[in-house]
């Protein structure tokens, strides 16, 4: 962006440093979006939602922060390596379906069980969730990596 402006003839790019409104509201909205993305992620198995949408929404929350602050600040707030995020997401996505062979079932046949937890009562444990976390990480990592690379902040 900056280099494009420079080529267009603007010698010094004016950047508004004190955009208080967007910085303040984005701090609040960031949390709401993140919570909603987790909600969508958890809803995924039986109702619309899942790792892909959840990941995109989580990425969009962080992109909102990137717009309000600059790259360095966001990096300080959320010290995550996007490469590692994509790699671990892909690893979960391939290892989980492969490991399921040990249950003596075909590729991708997810296993689940119910456990009783004192406060929450009966909850389901499902291997599909682990796979979906992989999808979540991959999607979020990829979209963030693309935005930061195209934005040209990482040089």
């Amino acid at each position, binding site marked *: 962006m900056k280099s494009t402006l420079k080529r267009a003839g603007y010698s010094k790019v004016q950047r508004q440093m004190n955009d208080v409104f967007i910085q303040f509201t984005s701090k609040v909205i960031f949390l709401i979006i993140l919570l909603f993305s987790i909600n969508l992620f958890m809803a995924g198995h039986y109702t619309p939602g899942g790792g892909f949408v959840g990941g995109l929404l989580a990425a969009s929350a962080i992109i909102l922060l990137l717009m309000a602050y600059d790259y360095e600040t966001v990096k300080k707030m959320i010290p995550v390596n996007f490469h590692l995020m994509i790699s671990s997401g892909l690893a979960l996505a391939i290892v989980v379906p492969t490991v399921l062979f040990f249950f003596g079932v*075909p590729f991708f046949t997810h296993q689940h069980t119910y456990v009783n937890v004192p406060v929450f009562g009966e909850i389901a444990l499902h291997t599909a969730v682990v796979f979906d976390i992989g999808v979540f990480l991959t999607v979020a990592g990829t979209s963030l990596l693309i935005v930061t690379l195209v934005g040209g902040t990482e040089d």
Partner: protein
Amino acid sequence: MTTNILPMLPIILPFLAGVIMLFIGKRPMPHRMVSAVTGLLMVGAAAFSVYYVYVNGTMVTFISNWSAPFGISVVYDMVAALLVLTTSIVMFFIVIYSFQSIGYEREKYYYYPMVMFMITGINGAFTTGDIFNMFVFFEVFLLASYVLITLGSRKIQLQEGFKYLVVNVVSSNFFLIGLAYLYSVTGSLNMADIHIKLSNYDGNLAIMTIIAVVFIFVFATKAGLFPLYFWMPGSYAAPPMPIIALFGALLTKVGVYAIARTFSLFFTNDAGYTHQVLLLLALLTIVAGCIGALAYTDMKKIIIYNIMIAIGVIIVGFSMMDYAGTIGAMYYLIHDMIIKTALFLLIGFIIYRTGKNDAADLGGLIKQHPVVGWTFFVAAMSLAGVPPFPGFFGKLFIVESAFDNGHSIAAIIVLLSSLIVLYSIMKIFIKVFWGEPAQPIELKNIKSDKLLFAAVGMVIVSTVFGLSADFLFPVFEMAAESFYDPSSYSNYLMGVE
């Protein structure tokens, strides 16, 4: 049988290797080791699968344990087994070849993981029994190939890569449209199920013909058939040599495989029309490829136009859809994947050694490289289909089938094209290895032991394949059965329903 891991291995292994390499980071040496070991493992697994399928018949896995017409099934029949084995061999040698040719910078920027992801997609497209899943795997290997074609960001690569991207996005779009039509007619996406539903189909034939034409358009674009090959010579000449070899040997063949699969399983009701269109396109492809192969002296271009000729010949075999035609096409398909890799690797060695692309600038290399020269000669003979080499058997069956079906012109064009192939490849051989160069050539001092190992290795694989063609005949007969007798492909559904 359903819990057998074997049919999933060609998809799991390269993907796992790619992910491991992503974790390793940007260090090339571990990448090389992981990818070479994976290549060996895949060759072993695929060879065992060929044996297993030969003994036990088609392997079927229902992914997620959803029974067949509803879930995605992986159908590992002999066609898939042979293609996966060839893909693994080609990938192993190309990976070895890349060690000394692709360059440190590209290795650092995830060259090997991208090769692995591309192989994942290709193997997936070969083995899946679900037409929508095939579309997904097409996208998987296309995405990886977009990265590979532009990796390195030279100007020509970006220019040709963009063309490649646009062409493939458009054709993938039409693939999806064709799938939607097909689904609206049959109400199923499982290929075997669609075959059963269409074999007693009494609806409107026009809609099936339209779907067939949409599918021809899509796969012809991917395979580089006649009117839609315009992107191929340019795009395939842009990236470095190992990537060209991968694309030329594998990507176009996936399109050919998809044509063979869809036209044997789906479009059998109006074969008089659809298969004639296919035959006509194949013959025009051969003619166009011959013109290109004669016109150029650029070595890469000649081989790329030779890919087109080979694809035309294979499609002639598949458009006959009878016993001899499909056996010939299977032989020629496997042969062409191996020999095109070998030729690209040999040409690549010459280009890396001399720094020149054009055969007309070279000469007299036989003094410095007698082994490469004679290996190239063997590869050239094999490409043209001289008897002891594998190309002969494929062409024999294809020509025999064409004469049987009364397509004498097609048979004569296939035969004449062999002469032109021989001429175009001998042109390279004579210009590069015999005579004296116009200007003295400065040979570059490169490390070349692995380049030669891979290139000569591929030629040896091809020769062994040619010599054992008789021994392998039952295997190919079994593979061809999936095409000329498609009910043998779809009868795994009988036990389920």
